[in-house]
């Protein structure tokens, strides 16, 4: 390795176009357009795999993924709430069920119009969470937040264009629980609520007015605001009566049993569903590549987010170390300046010490603030991805249910054939009735499956748009803050330069 004593520092101010890669915010090339959906789904019939052990397969399948599975119960049981809203999806979701097969094109396109209207309405509504106030004392104390909603009168969703209510944390969790139980199984990505935090909350309850508990409350306030904003931005969820009640009514029945409804609870439920899916003996034969592709995409995204999260944490650690070492050097340089007998040099060295100190403090503060924001958003998205995973699994469950019903129909038909040869007219009639009913159920099962598939496609496209927007804003803010720091550094060094030049 030969080297020459030349200056290798070429002036690299060229900036290349960043490439498009599978990353945190791609250009919107993912997913087929809405019009193509219906034609795509027609061919989305998963194939049935018939084994010789049809009986056993059948038995196991029902056991795992029946309607009355425990997972479902958790969602449904959100405690006694006087305003019991029926567990049926709102009308916009019901429409496709009533439509006939050949009307799909029509229903679908009308859905599109509906969705466009809905999204423009949704984006006009704004919610803010503010004024945290401690209510009560001791371990029964809690924080109450002011929730302010602003909606244009044209949206016709609320009584007033602007209004406020006071809510506590468990109310938010309660809201999420209700929405999740109503919409997740239909394929809607319901934004998850912020995590519960025993440690954080205890400090607040115990009444320590220290900076760390203030920071906790502030973090939580922001998280709740982001949560509500995401929820009201969802065109379907915005119309939900529970949400409206949450935002509008002055009194809200207390949500109990919020343990299961917290972010961690939701995650546990999703994982249980995933286990159930894995235990399925008839593996879903995915003939729609879109779903497979998207699932892979989300897996990759999840992995990426976790990596970034880890990098951020180690970065903060390192910043702290550098900051310490620079502070130490600054002190030492000041001492050296004092010891220096040449006046001008002595002054310059003291100035140097000051510059180094100021620099590091600035940089450190800046970095902490930004990493805090970044870490919070990453946390949000890790939870959001869990919700996305959840809806994909709901679709598989819907498929399984359809398959089970189809198998049951098959068996009934076989049984009916056998009954023809026996002399039991009553039983034969019963069998025929059963078959008729099952045929209806099979059709319904197929429709449900196709419906959830459509919903998921739309939801995913919406989610991706939101994600791209969110990260773009975050990154832009972060870069702007970095640029500001660098400009500050320039100021410090430019102030120092004449001092250094004054040495003679």
């Amino acid at each position, binding site marked *: 390795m030969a*080297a020459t004593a030349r200056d290798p520092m070429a002036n690299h101010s060229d*900036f290349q176009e960043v490439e498009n890669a*599978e990353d945190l915010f791609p250009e919107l090339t993912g997913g087929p357009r809405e019009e193509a959906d219906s034609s795509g789904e027609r061919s989305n019939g998963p194939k049935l795999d018939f084994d010789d052990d049809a009986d056993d397969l059948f038995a196991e399948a029902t056991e795992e993924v029946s309607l009355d599975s425990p997972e479902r119960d958790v969602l449904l049981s959100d405690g006694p709430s006087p305003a019991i809203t029926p567990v049926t999806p709102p009308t916009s979701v019901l429409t496709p069920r009533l439509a006939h097969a050949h009307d799909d094109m029509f229903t679908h396109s009308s859905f599109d119009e509906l969705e466009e209207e809905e999204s423009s309405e949704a984006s006009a509504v704004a919610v803010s969470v503010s004024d945290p106030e401690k209510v009560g004392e001791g371990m029964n104390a809690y924080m109450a937040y002011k929730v302010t909603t602003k909606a244009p009168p044209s949206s016709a969703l609320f009584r007033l264009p602007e209004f406020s209510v006071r809510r506590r944390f468990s109310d938010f969790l309660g809201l999420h629980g209700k929405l999740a139980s109503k919409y997740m199984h239909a394929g809607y990505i319901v934004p998850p609520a912020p995590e519960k935090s025993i440690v954080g909350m205890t400090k607040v309850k115990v009444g320590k007015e220290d900076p760390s508990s203030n920071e906790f409350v502030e973090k939580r306030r922001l998280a709740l605001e982001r949560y509500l904003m995401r929820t009201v931005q969802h065109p379907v969820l915005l119309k939900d009566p529970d949400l409206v009640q949450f935002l509008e009514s002055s009194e809200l029945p207390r949500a109990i049993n919020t343990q299961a409804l917290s972010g961690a609870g939701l995650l546990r439920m999703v994982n249980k569903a995933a286990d159930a899916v894995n235990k399925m003996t008839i593996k879903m034969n995915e003939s729609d590549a879109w779903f497979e592709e998207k699932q892979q995409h989300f897996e990759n995204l999840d992995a990426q987010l976790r990596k*970034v999260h880890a990098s951020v944490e180690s970065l903060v650690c390192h910043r702290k170390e550098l900051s310490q070492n620079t502070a*130490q050097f600054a002190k030492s340089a000041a001492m050296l300046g004092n010891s220096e007998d040449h006046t001008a040099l002595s002054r310059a060295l003291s100035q140097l010490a000051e510059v180094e100190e100021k620099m590091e403090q600035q940089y450190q503060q800046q970095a902490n603030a930004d990493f805090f924001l970044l870490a919070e958003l990453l946390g949000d998205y890790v939870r959001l991805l869990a919700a996305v995973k959840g809806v994909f699994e709901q679709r598989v469950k819907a498929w399984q249910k359809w398959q089970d019903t189809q198998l049951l129909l098959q068996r009934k038909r076989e049984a009916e054939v056998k009954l023809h040869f026996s002399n039991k007219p009553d039983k034969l009639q019963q069998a025929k009735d059963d078959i008729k009913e099952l045929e209806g159920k099979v059709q319904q099962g197929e429709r449900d499956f196709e419906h959830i598939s459509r919903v998921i496609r739309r939801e995913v496209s919406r989610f991706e748009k939101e994600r791209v927007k969110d990260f773009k804003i975050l990154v832009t803010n972060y870069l702007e803050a970095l640029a500001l720091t660098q400009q500050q*550094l320039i100021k410090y060094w430019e102030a120092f330069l004449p001092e250094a030049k004054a040495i003679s």
Partner: protein
Amino acid sequence: MRSVSVDLNHDASLLIDIPDALCERDKVKFTVHTKTTLTAFQKPEISVPRQHEDFIWLHDTLVETEDYAGLIIPPAPPKPDFESPREKMHKLGEGEATMTKEEYTKMKQELEAEYLAVFKKTVQVHEVFLQRLSSHPILSKDRNFQIFLEYDQDLSVRRKNAKEMFGGFFKNMVKSADEVLISGIKEVDDFFEQEKTFLLDYYSKIKDSTAKAEKMTRTHKMFILFPFRHMEKLSDLFEKLRKVEGRVASDQELKLTELLRYYMRDIQAAKDLLYRRARALVDYENSNKALDKARLKSKDIPQAEEHQQQCLQKFDKLSESGKKELTSFKGRRVVAFRKNLVEMAELEIKHAKNNVALLQGCIELLKNN
């Protein structure tokens, strides 16, 4: 690119530089290139290969030359230290299996850059040593210096002989008794009294500053190993930012840490001068005592008188030359600090402006997309 000292190569009668060097395993082979108009040299232009040990040999022979006792001998260049990049290379080899091809390539590039940086540093420091000698009115005429510059054979034989002759005796002596002797001396000369106080204090401060600067620079360099490499769309930007940060760290090291390091050693060399003078004073005082004793005993008076005279002469010579050396040393130090601090500030500004341009470019891109 000489950061630690002013441009020493301004006397055209003897110009020295190290135009290139080769790294063979751990040994660095420097090509020492001399251009001279002096008749003492055999040729007007010479190039010879030299190893680090040859420089040390030259330094030591100068230190041990009596005639130069009154001079500040330029500090010997430190041994080339490839420990850090070598460690990283090892880590890279171990981690190869677990890294993506991209990561591996990036790390390898970083490693190569670091190797290059260490390399450049060591070349510079060896070059400056020679240039200090060539610009010194007395040392530039040293016979061994000339041999070093033009002897076209391997110096290792000479080196071994020298070691046998001196056995590093003097050097060891200097190290141990240093501080005590200097501080214990009753100083009659104000100039030297001030210098002594100043140098002792300054030395401890600059030693501390050097250590803290090294720690800071080391952390700064490590820092660039934890990029935001997973935000892929921005990975290009963050790569560039990282590279700039890397340059900031290495510039800081060159202009600040290296400066402090060099002057710490230079001050040690100045202290060595003070020590030698102190020793000469002690010898003189002892010779006085011996003369008194001789007069008392009326024995060997002429020898004692002569010895005393010699000691006095030596002491006076050291004091005179020492004063000159220390005064010019101060001037040299101030100039070097000024140069480096100015350059460092200018580089910091340049890098920060670079960063701002990069960041604003990216922000524009994001906003318009």
